[in-house]
């Protein structure tokens, strides 16, 4: 592995670092609030997810924060549970729980842990954290929706590194076999996992072709381009009687130049006021 790749001096996704609008910056600043609350967290995987979740919760999903178990809601499962801070920030903003909880991230008296727990947190549909679980849970829920001929849909967000897990491909086979048109897999394809780049650790390419081969309708999008994401979600399902896979090309750590593609920012510890302030300044300048 080259030093340049380790430091993330080039952005391997083929995406040029693009600007972030005010809302994307504010959401990232709320993530920093949460990171400071717990003095730790998965920064890279959180920041690659922001625009995907923003578009889902602003424009795509049906939900009712006052009634998180509303029968007609869409089911969203964050299978890459370590990106949970991004989801916590959106759920707090939408009113699922008070945003003061963000300051108690990982605290003994808080409800927000380093991985999402559906028993504790309103709006979390499945407890994840151990990778490779969310897709199969989503398949079961999509099948249940089909049994009752419901209109609601199931969205499962995976990490690309998570797709190293064999259970993901067991699930992909099953979803294709069942022709689950009401299921959408979203991959936060940030091209990096804990140790290094995904092509060096365990190459997933040809990634989109894999999903096609497993029976999915596939679409690829810049995962930080909110209008492209909106269009991609509006086109669902991509093929009749098949599950859909939306591969979102993202930058791990997007929004803090030092963090982008830098594996040292996969999970940060000892985040203090000064570090948090530096992160906020970097986001503002982005």
């Amino acid at each position: 592995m080259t030093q340049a790749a380790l430091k993330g001096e080039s952005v391997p996704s083929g995406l040029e670092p693009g600007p972030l609008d005010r809302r994307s910056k504010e959401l990232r600043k709320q993530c920093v609030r949460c990171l400071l609350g717990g003095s730790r967290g998965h920064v890279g995987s959180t920041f690659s997810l922001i625009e995907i979740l923003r578009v889902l919760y602003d424009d795509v999903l049906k939900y009712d924060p006052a009634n998180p178990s509303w029968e007609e809601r869409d089911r969203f499962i964050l299978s890459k549970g370590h990106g949970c801070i991004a989801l916590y920030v959106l759920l707090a903003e939408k009113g699922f729980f008070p945003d003061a909880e963000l300051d108690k991230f990982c605290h003994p008296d808080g409800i927000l842990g380093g991985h999402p727990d559906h028993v504790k947190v309103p709006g979390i549909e499945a407890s994840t954290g151990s990778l490779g679980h969310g897709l199969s849970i989503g398949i079961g829920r999509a099948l249940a929706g089909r049994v009752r001929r419901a209109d609601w849909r199931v969205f499962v967000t995976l990490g690309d590194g998570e797709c190293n897990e064999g259970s993901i491909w067991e699930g992909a086979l099953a979803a294709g076999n069942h022709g689950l048109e009401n299921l959408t897999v979203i991959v936060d394809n940030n091209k990096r996992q804990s140790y290094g780049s995904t092509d060096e650790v365990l190459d997933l390419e040809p990634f989109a072709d894999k999903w096609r081969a497993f029976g999915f309708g596939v679409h690829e999008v810049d995962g930080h381009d909110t209008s492209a994401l909106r269009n991609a979600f509006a086109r669902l399902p991509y093929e009749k009687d098949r599950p859909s896979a939306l591969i979102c090309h993202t930058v791990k750590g997007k929004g803090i130049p030092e963090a982008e593609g830098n594996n040292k920012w996969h999970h940060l510890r000892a985040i203090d006021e000064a570090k948090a302030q530096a992160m906020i300044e970097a986001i503002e300048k982005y």
Partner: protein
Amino acid sequence: MRKTCIDMVHELAKQDERVVFVGSDLGVGTLDEMRWELPDRFFMEGVSEANMIGMCAGLATEGHIVYTNTIATFIARRAYEQVCLDVGHADLPVRFICNGGGLVYAPLGPTHEAIDDFALMRAIPNMTIFAAADAEEMREFMPQSLDWPHPIYIRLAKGHDPIVTQGLPPFEIGKARPLVEGSDALIVTTGITLRVARPALDELRAEGLDVGLLHLPTVKPLDTDAILSRASKSRAVVVVEEHSIIGGLGSAVASLLLEELPSTPSFRMIGIPDQFPDIYGSQADQLRHFDITAERVATEVRGLLRSAAA
């Protein structure tokens, strides 16, 4: 017993639209009638247990009572994390119907012999563990499984097992079933070891020893009151199980007695020693090989009572 269990899934599904069945590449023809009658609630998945258990969790989260079936070791060992996290942590009503409990698959070797399933499942919070002695006990269990609010690990025996639950009080999940009360010694059984122990009980009582037998079809939650009230009056306790001596019913009872009784009776666990099964043959061959026999039960009880008297 398996047929009783599986057939009753169909019966329950007819009565209750929450019930679904999920299998993993089972034998051809399994539950065909349910498949034709209730196709929306019958799923036959591939050889992918991790996915199957996650799917079951998803179905159960949406309000279904999920009966899922494959070989015990593939649920208890291979898909342990899905059983533990997706179902156990979420405390969902998934019923794991597990073929080949204990040494049933003796001809197939250690990959298929579920000698550690009680230990693995006991360690999962919220899990209930049921091991039937015969088809009658299974028949009593299944309707109660419908509304039990926790996941259940259902250990199946070989099939065509002799009926040995005659004379027991009615079955209730979580409750022990005393066959005979006795003040000298207590024999504790679960699953098919009721059949192993009954001849020993008859023999010991014929010898004039006042021996009781407590059958525990529910391994977890343990019916602690039933065990303690009898063990506290006994000089000896012998637990017989078709399971490793590590982590099974014997371990559970031993911990209970040590923690709760001011003076503990003499105690013996009869089970599979800390090793992988090292011969083939039949279940009966293996039970003899590991000395899980009526003769051994009788010998251990006599020996413990002699030591206690000395």
